[in-house]
C-alpha cells in the first residue's frame, strides 16, 4: 500500500511538535519515507531452458527515523531511533523512545542541519510510474527482451545467445521536519535498464542501457537492441600483449572508475577516515587541467536528481575538481560540521539514506553522490578521441574495479569484459577479445594523463552504484594493460 506525501508530512510535523516538548530534548529531526523497489530480471539463454523474464519482484518498505538531541547533566547526547511500517503518532512515540534509549555522547556531533538554499526541482516525478501495475512491470521486462531477441533474429543469430540484465523501477516518497526549521518533502521516480547480450561461442558481450524519470521516455527495447549490436560488432576480437597503451575509456568504464575509486575518495567520510589519496590536496592540482568534475542533484530529467537531501537541504551543485584543481568534497551535515575547523565548511548537499534502492528510514544519512558531471576544458567529438590516441585501445566496459591496496594508495585493477576495440592510426581497427586484459594502474596517473574529454555525454549507471554519471568518453595516455587468461581464450 502506498503512503501519500501528506501523511508523511503530517507525521513528521506533528512528531516534531510532540518530541520537542519532551523532557531533556533540545532538538529533534524526524524523517519519514515510503519506498518501492521493483526489479524485473531478464535471463534468456538460447541453449539452456530459461524463463526470459526470470522474476518480476519488488520490495516495499516505509517508516520513521528520528534523531533527537538531549541536554543532560553530563552534556549533550544524541540518539537515533526508527520504526517500520508505522507512519503514525504511535510510530513517532516508539521511535522517540528508541532514540532516548540509544542516546550517546559523541563529541563530534555539532548540530542538526540548518536550513540552507532554495529548492530547484518541483514536481519532477512521474505519477504514471507511481501507479504502475504488476502486469505493466512484466511487460516492460519483455519489451527489453524483445528488442534484443528481434535484433538477434534479424542478424540470423539463433544459438549460443545470452540476454541478461534488468528493468529497475524505484519509487520514493519522503518528508522531513526539525526544530531547526527544516520542513520539506520529496517524491522521485526512477527507471533504469541495463541489458547485456552475448554470442557465447564467439566470446563476445555487448551492453545497452537507458535511464529515465518518466515512463514515456523509457525505452528498454532500445537498450536490448543496442546490447545485441555491440556484441555482434565485437565478433572476431584479437588479444593484445602486455604493455602500456594510450586508451579511450568509454562511458561505462568512466562511470565504473568514478563510482568505485574517484568519488569515494572525494567524500568527506574518506577524509575523516584518513583513507583518500586526496588528503592534504585541497586547492592543489590533482589531475589534468582538462578535467572538471562536479555533483549536481538539480539536473532536470537526470535520474540522480532530488529536490532535497535526506537531511532536508535543497540539492545543488558541489564542485569537486575544477580544471584539474581539487576544490571540494561531497559532504553531509555531520562530517561538514565535524571537519569545518580543519578544512573549510562544505555545504552538506549529499546527505542521503540510500539503502535497498530507496530512501531508508532505518539509517542515518551517509554521503552519497547524486548526478556526477564530468566535463572537459576543451571538449571534442567522440571520434576525435581516437585521433588523439592514434594507436591504442578503446575500452567500452570494465568489471570488478577495486582500490586493490586501499583507497589512499590509489592503486586499482579491473578487467575489460566487453564493447572494446584495438585502435590504429586514429581509427577502430579490430575488436578486442573480451576477458583477456587486466588494467593495473594508479588513479592519480589516470587523472593526470587525460588528453581529451568528449562533448557527448550520457546518463550511465553501473551495478551496485547509487550515483548517476553524466559520462563523457575520456582519452588517457600511458595506461598499463596486462594480457591474461591465456589458458582459456
Amino acid at each position, binding site marked *: 500500500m502506498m503512503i501519500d506525501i501528506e501523511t508523511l508530512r503530517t507525521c513528521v510535523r506533528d512528531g516534531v511538535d510532540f518530541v520537542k516538548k519532551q523532557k531533556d530534548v533540545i532538538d529533534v529531526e524526524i524523517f519519514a519515507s515510503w519506498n518501492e523497489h521493483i526489479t524485473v530480471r531478464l535471463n534468456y539463454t538460447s541453449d539452456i531452458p530459461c524463463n526470459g523474464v526470470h522474476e518480476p519482484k519488488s520490495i516495499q518498505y516505509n517508516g520513521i527515523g528520528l534523531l533527537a538531541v538531549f541536554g543532560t547533566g553530563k552534556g549533550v547526547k544524541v540518539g537515533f531511533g526508527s520504526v517500520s511500517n508505522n507512519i503514525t503518532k504511535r510510530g513517532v512515540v516508539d521511535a522517540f523512545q528508541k532514540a532516548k534509549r540509544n542516546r550517546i555522547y559523541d563529541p563530534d556531533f555539532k548540530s542538526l542541519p540548518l536550513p540552507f538554499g532554495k529548492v530547484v526541482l518541483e514536481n519532477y516525478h512521474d505519477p504514471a510510474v507511481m501507479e504502475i501495475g504488476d502486469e505493466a512491470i512484466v511487460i516492460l521486462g519483455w519489451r527489453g527482451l524483445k528488442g534484443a531477441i528481434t535484433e538477434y533474429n534479424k542478424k540470423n543469430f539463433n544459438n549460443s545467445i545470452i540476454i541478461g540484465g534488468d528493468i529497475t523501477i524505484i519509487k520514493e516518497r519522503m518528508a522531513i521536519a526539525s526544530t531547526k526549521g527544516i520542513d520539506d518533502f520529496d517524491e522521485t521516480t526512477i527507471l533504469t535498464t541495463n541489458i547485456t547480450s552475448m554470442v557465447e561461442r564467439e566470446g563476445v558481450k555487448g551492453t545497452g542501457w537507458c535511464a529515465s524519470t518518466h515512463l514515456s521516455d523509457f525505452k528498454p527495447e532500445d537498450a536490448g537492441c543496442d546490447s545485441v549490436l555491440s556484441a555482434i560488432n565485437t565478433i572476431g576480437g584479437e588479444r593484445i600483449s602486455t604493455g602500456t597503451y594510450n586508451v579511450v575509456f568509454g562511458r561505462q568504464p568512466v562511470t565504473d572508475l568514478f563510482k568505485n575509486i574517484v568519488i569515494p575518495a572525494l567524500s568527506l567520510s574518506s577524509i575523516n577516515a584518513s583513507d583518500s589519496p586526496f588528503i592534504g590536496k585541497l586547492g592543489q592540482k590533482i589531475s589534468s587541467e582538462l578535467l572538471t568534475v562536479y555533483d549536481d542533484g538539480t539536473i532536470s530529467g537526470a535520474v540522480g536528481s532530488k529536490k532535497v537531501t535526506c537531511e532536508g537541504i535543497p540539492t545543488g551543485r558541489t564542485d569537486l575538481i575544477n580544471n584539474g584543481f581539487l576544490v571540494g568534497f561531497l559532504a553531509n551535515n555531520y562530517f561538514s560540521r565535524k571537519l569545518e575547523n580543519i578544512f573549510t565548511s562544505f555545504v552538506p548537499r549529499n546527505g542521503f539514506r540510500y539503502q535497498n534502492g530507496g530512501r531508508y528510514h532505518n539509517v542515518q544519512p551517509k554521503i552519497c553522490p547524486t548526478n556526477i558531471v564530468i566535463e572537459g576544458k576543451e571538449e571534442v567529438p567522440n571520434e576525435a578521441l581516437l585521433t588523439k590516441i592514434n594507436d591504442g585501445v578503446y575500452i567500452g566496459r570494465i*568489471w570488478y574495479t577495486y582500490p*586493490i591496496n586501499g583507497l589512499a594508495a590509489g592503486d586499482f585493477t579491473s578487467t575489460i569484459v566487453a564493447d572494446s576495440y584495438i585502435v590504429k592510426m586514429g581509427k577502430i581497427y579490430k575488436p578486442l577479445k573480451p576477458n583477456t586484459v587486466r588494467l593495473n594502474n594508479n588513479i592519480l596517473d589516470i587523472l593526470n594523463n587525460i588528453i581529451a574529454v568528449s562533448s557527448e555525454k550520457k546518463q550511465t549507471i553501473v551495478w551496485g552504484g547509487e550515483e548517476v554519471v553524466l559520462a563523457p568518453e575520456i582519452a588517457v595516455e600511458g595506461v598499463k594493460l596486462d594480457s591474461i587468461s591465456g589458458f582459456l581464450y
Partner: protein
Amino acid sequence: MLEYRSKIIATRIKIEHIDTIKDSITKAIGRALSLKNCNYADIRFGINETKYASAEDGKSKCMGEDVSISFGARVLAGEISSWGYFGQSLGEAEAGQKSIYKKLTSGIERAYTRALANAGKKAEFKHSAPSLTAVILAGIDVHKDTINAVFDKEPREVKLKGIINLCTGISLDMRNISNDVKYSLIHIQTGVNRELFCSTEGACIDQTYALTQGGVCVVAQKAKGVPESYCDYMGDIHGWEVLEGKNVYKQALSDFALLRTRETLELTEAEFLPATDEPVVVVTNPHFNALLVHEIVGHPTEADRALKLETAYAGRSWLFRSFDDNELGKQIASPLLTAYSDPAINGYGHFKYDTEGTPSKRVNLIENGILKGFMNGREYAAILGHSPNGSMRATGPYYVPLVRMTNTVFANGDKDPKEIISDVSDGYYIVNHRIPSISESRENFRISAQKVYKIEKGQITKLYRHGGITSDSKDFLMNIDAVGNDFEVFPIPNCGKGQPMQIMRVGNGGPTLRSKAKLTGHQKL
C-alpha cells in the same frame, strides 16, 4: 497531541512472536493453493532482533537495539509455469494474527498476478525463443522441523551500554598505541534471527540462528608517507562468547583489534612489494586462502552462474560453457587439492535447511583436482539434472533466494605449514587477504594481501606492504604442490550478488597452500 506511553519498548516484538502467528502463516500459504493455475508457492517470514554499536577513535558513534520483521512470497503460476515474487518489511504494529494474514495473502496475490502475467508473455514469445520453458523444481523430501539457536551467551541479554563501552574502549586503545594511528573504528552487532519457511508442498521449517560480529578498521601513516589501512572481522553463528575468544582467532575482540593495529603500524615502515613479470613460488596462509577459495572456487561453482543467470552482474563461470563443453569430471586443479561447501560445519554458512526448505548437505566441488559439481537450488538442479543440494540463501526474507556459498573451503591437507615454508629456497609468504578483483568468469584473479614476506632459504625474512598475487585461476590451482594441515574457516561478511544486490555472510577457509603466481605491488607514481 500525541499520547506518551513509556511501556512501548518493554513490550516490543520478539522472535518468540512467530509461535503465535504460525497458524496465520500456514493458513496464508493454504490460500495460494486455491488460486487458479498456481503451481507452487512459498512464504518466508522472519523476525530479527539485533543490538549494535560503533565507535571511532575512542568516541561513541551510534548504538541501538532493534527488531525487523519482513516476509517474501514466491509463486509459480500459469500454463507455462513462471515466477512472481513480492517482498515487504512489516512493522511491530501490524504483527497481530489478523494483520499478518492479510499482509501475507495480499503479498501472495501480488506475486501470483506477476507470475501469471509473466507466464502469458512467455507463451507469446515462445515461438521466437524456443528455449523458454516452464519452471520445474527438482523434487525434495518435504520437512517439518524446528531448529533452535546455539549460543553460550544469549545475545539479547547483553547490555547495550556494555557494547558501546567495549567499542569506545577498544578504539581508544588502538588510537593510543601510536601517534601514527590516524583512525580506528570498532563496530559490533549481536542478535538472533528466526525465519519460518512454509510451502504449498507442506513444508514448515522454523529455524533460529544467533549472529555475533565484531569489525575492526585501522589507518596508520608515517609523516608524508602513504597511509596503510586494514579492515578485518571476527564473527560466527553464535552468541556474545564469539567476541570473548570463541572464534577462529581464539582471541577476544580487543586483542584482535590491537594486533591488527600493531601490524598496520609495522607495515607503514615496510617497503612496497615490487611486482614481477613472471610467476614465483608463493605460500598462502589460511586467512588469504579464505578469499581465494571464495573467488576462484566458490563463485564459479554456483549453478546460477554456470547457467548464465548472472551474466549481466556477478559474471559467468569458466567451468561451464555449455552442456557439451564444460569442466565437470575434468582435472582443473592439482591432485593434492580438494574443495567443498559444507553448511554443517561452524561458520557464517552454517544452517540445516536452505531458503527452499532443502536439507543442507556437503557439496563436493573439487575432489583430488577433479571438478565434481555445483552448488544449486531446486530450479537449477532440475535444469542440470543434478540433485538439489540446499545452497539457496537470501540476505533477508524480503529478498529472492539465490545460489550462495555456505562454508566453502579448501580441504585440509597433511603437511606442516612450517615445512611448506622451510622447503622454499626463494619465494614469498602471502599473509591475510585484503581486496579481490576477479575476471568475469573467474578465470583470472588479482588479490591483495595484508602482508607479504620474502622467503629465503626456508626462512621468512623481509616484510613488504601493498603486495598481492595475480594468476590465471587454473594455473594457480594446477601448480599447488603442498597443502597444509592447519585448516580454518573465516567469516566473510560482505559477499555481493544479485539485482538488487544482496550482501551475504559466508564462511570460507582452508589450510596453507603453496603454488606459483605473479606478485603485484603499488603502482608508484
